[in-house]
């Protein structure tokens, strides 16, 4: 710990996080213990590291913009035995794909989502909204004034991340060259190239 951080400050942070019912923003903790936010961020980070090192069954983690106590993932089997309805609601592939689009493209309208997925996202979006992973964040300024959607704090909690910036950059996901080539080749209009192609593969087979 830094020299100017007293033991009391660290203990106060622990006490506050223990009684909190949702992630506590660093700024709020800083205000309560009268220390700079940067210091509190450091204190929390160091507390998290020290719990891990001591091998405790709990952690401090930064999730959805704030710090919180949570059980250690190693101990999920015990916790699930204890919390009877501990089974988490599973997200379907369609739900995850829709969430992925909303997370990276927000604010986005239903129509825009539909055109990316090629299917009506209505039912999936209703479920996601019901679970509060997505919410309307405004209206399009265009003529239709479509409702625009974005992800929520609960979405960040569901993913266990502190903010949207913790998601990998979209560039990471650009399909690799071989797939792009395969798609392009498949949909090529010019028949000459197709002939060439098959000639080449004949050659390959002959070897």
């Amino acid at each position, binding site marked *: 710990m830094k020299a100017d951080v007293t033991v009391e400050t660290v203990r106060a942070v622990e006490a506050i996080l223990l009684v909190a019912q949702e992630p506590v923003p660093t700024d709020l903790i800083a205000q309560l213990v009268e220390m700079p936010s940067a210091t509190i961020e450091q204190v929390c980070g160091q507390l998290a590291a020290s719990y891990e090192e001591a091998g405790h069954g709990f952690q401090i*983690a930064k999730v959805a913009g704030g710090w919180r106590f949570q059980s250690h993932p190693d101990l999920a089997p015990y916790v699930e035995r204890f919390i009877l309805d501990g089974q988490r609601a599973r997200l379907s592939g369609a739900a995850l794909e829709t969430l992925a689009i909303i997370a990276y493209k927000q604010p986005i309208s239903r129509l825009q989502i539909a055109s990316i997925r090629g299917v009506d996202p209505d039912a999936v979006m209703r479920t996601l909204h019901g679970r509060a992973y997505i919410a309307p964040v405004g209206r399009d300024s265009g003529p239709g004034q479509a409702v625009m959607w974005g992800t929520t704090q609960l979405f960040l909690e569901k993913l266990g991340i502190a903010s949207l910036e913790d998601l990998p950059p979209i560039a990471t996901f650009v399909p690799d060259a071989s797939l792009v080539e395969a798609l392009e080749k498949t949909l090529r209009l010019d028949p000459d190239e197709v002939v060439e192609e098959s000639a080449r593969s004949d050659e390959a087979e002959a070897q």
Partner: protein
Amino acid sequence: MKVAIEVATPVFEGPFDLLLHLIMREEVDIHEISLATIVDAYLLELAKMAELDLEIATEFLLIAATLVEIKSRRLLPGRENVDLDEELALWEERDLLLARLLECKTFKDVAKILAVFVDDADRVYARTTGPDERFAEVTPDLLEGLTIQKLERGFINAITPKPQMSINYYHVNPIRFTVAEAVEELMTELPRKLRTSFRELTANFVERLEVVVRFLALLEMYKQGYIEIDQVDRFGDITVAWTGIGPDAETNMEIDSYEG
């Protein structure tokens, strides 16, 4: 050696999903992508869906039409008499399809990473217990100012059905008929006409979709030997002639036999 493997038909989340699946499967299997195989497989899936679900998504058919156009463009080369506008339009549609496939694939990959995040996050449980009873006095009184009138209003609000804000954002009407129904119509229409053209057969249709459905129906009947199709100019009109012979003119024809 190639072994045919029966795979349980997966549920496809839309036309891009299906098309990506088909193309990637081809790539893995034979390292050479045959558009013909993919178009046939796509149409086969489409036919299965058309039988299962009348409300089949319009996108499936629009993409089928684009695929079929690209395929026919390849099979019927011929540089003369090319309508440049139509040629350009086809290029545009192809590029659009390519771009949308890539975008779809990108978000499918993102979804996989999100699933990993979710799986990890599902293994931790947050503490949400709150302060214990020692702090009860400090805790603000939530019910201060609550009256029975407010409570009554709260209850009325709670049980009043919420307005549905869902808007119908599909500009295309839901499909009113299936490929199978179109075939049925044509089976009564064509024997009377004997010889006609695709444009004539679709002259009364407003929706592009209806045209596509008819087109798919004609392709099907062509494969079954009921009709002859001839296209003199590429992108020109298609003449349709009733052959009067089919595999078995007495019984209902099987629609789900696009492979061939």
